């Protein structure tokens, strides 16, 4: 009996440790739009800023339930206005992973795209520098570009497994993505097409499930 109890305890500990961060880990979710920038008009009458906020809050809730030691922070609150640079400054203080979320009106098949920041295609990643060095805004992403690519790739692979042929999913692409400019931690952007506002819960489930692989990548890197 004590052996069975010990075996059960071991199984529970193992399953917990795969969803447990050794050190506190912070993810910042950035929904497109703010008080000054309403974003695209979606699903008839809805604004991008409202739907991305719903999406980000849903993903935050799901991820915090799944992982111990994970803190999910939203880059803005409803009614708040923040430029890209202000969000980057906020993220550079507290975030270990930054995810930008945007939506656009669906015209054909449902689609999800993934991007990481890249200004110069031939630029090589550079070694991390000490925190006291001033780095230009256009180069601050270079030390973490490999980690951003790996996070985005892990997300893409899992997303492909989840959606199979029901959605079009494009491989992660490095582009001069404005919401990711100036962010020092690993960062990638998601953009999903949406037809109806009631598709948000479905997107929350799909995206949060796919994001677990990106987060698992960072758990492995922590150890």
């Amino acid at each position, binding site marked *: 009996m004590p052996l069975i109890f010990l075996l059960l305890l071991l199984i529970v500990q193992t399953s917990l440790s795969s969803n447990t961060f050794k050190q506190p880990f912070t993810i910042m979710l950035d929904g497109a739009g703010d008080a000054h920038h309403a974003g695209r008009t979606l699903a008839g009458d809805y604004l991008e800023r409202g739907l991305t906020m719903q999406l980000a809050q849903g993903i935050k809730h799901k991820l915090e339930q799944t992982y111990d030691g994970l803190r999910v922070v939203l880059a803005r609150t409803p009614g708040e206005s923040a430029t890209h640079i202000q969000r980057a400054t906020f993220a550079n203080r507290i975030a270990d992973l930054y995810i930008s979320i945007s939506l656009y009106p669906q015209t054909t098949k449902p689609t999800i795209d993934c991007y990481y920041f890249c200004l110069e295609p031939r630029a090589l990643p550079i070694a991390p520098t000490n925190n006291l060095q001033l780095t230009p805004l256009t180069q601050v992403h270079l030390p973490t570009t490999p980690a951003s690519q790996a996070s985005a790739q892990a997300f893409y692979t899992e997303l492909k497994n989840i959606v199979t042929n029901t959605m079009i999913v494009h491989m992660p*692409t490095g582009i001069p993505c*404005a919401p990711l400019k100036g962010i020092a931690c690993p960062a990638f952007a998601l953009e999903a097409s949406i037809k109806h506002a009631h598709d948000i819960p479905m997107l929350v489930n799909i995206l949060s499930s796919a994001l677990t692989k990106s987060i698992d990548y960072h758990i492995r890197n922590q150890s």
Partner: protein
Amino acid sequence: MTLAQRWLTLIAALAMSAGFVYFLVHTNILIIAPYHSSYTPALVTAATKKNSTLFFYKQDAWHQEVVPLLLPDQQADALSCIANRWLVLATEEELMNKKVRVEHAFITQYGSGYLSCDQCLFESAQSTREKFFLIQGLIRSIKAAGISLKGIYFLVQNKPMADYHLDFSVPWSCEPYNVNN
């Protein structure tokens, strides 16, 4: 003429001269005189007829169209010409719903190109992917025309193009991005 009349005449003439000079300085009156100059603007600029390949991305694939163009030998003029022709093609292919025109084109001595359009190329509802490939099609076409640039700044009415999803405050590289379909 009495002495008083002479003084009055003199004061009146001085007052009129002062008033004339005052209004001339403040450009309330203009003097238009015939202007002779030895400058004669060039009526003919050197140009070469070339078959240029224009690239565009549509329905998840790259397409190209070869068009005959009279490209000026001046690189900046050639840049403007090829960009305007590409914009016409983009409208014909329904990649853009509005007619956009390049107003100014400039190339610096360091190889940076500046393209200033009369309005933004993008619609608000377009996805980032559509916008990105629109720009890539234009850049590829410029490169295929033999205009070698280190980077291109995209401007609207001489100010950096403002877009929420793509950063136009920096020059866009003419090298292909790592795009996977």
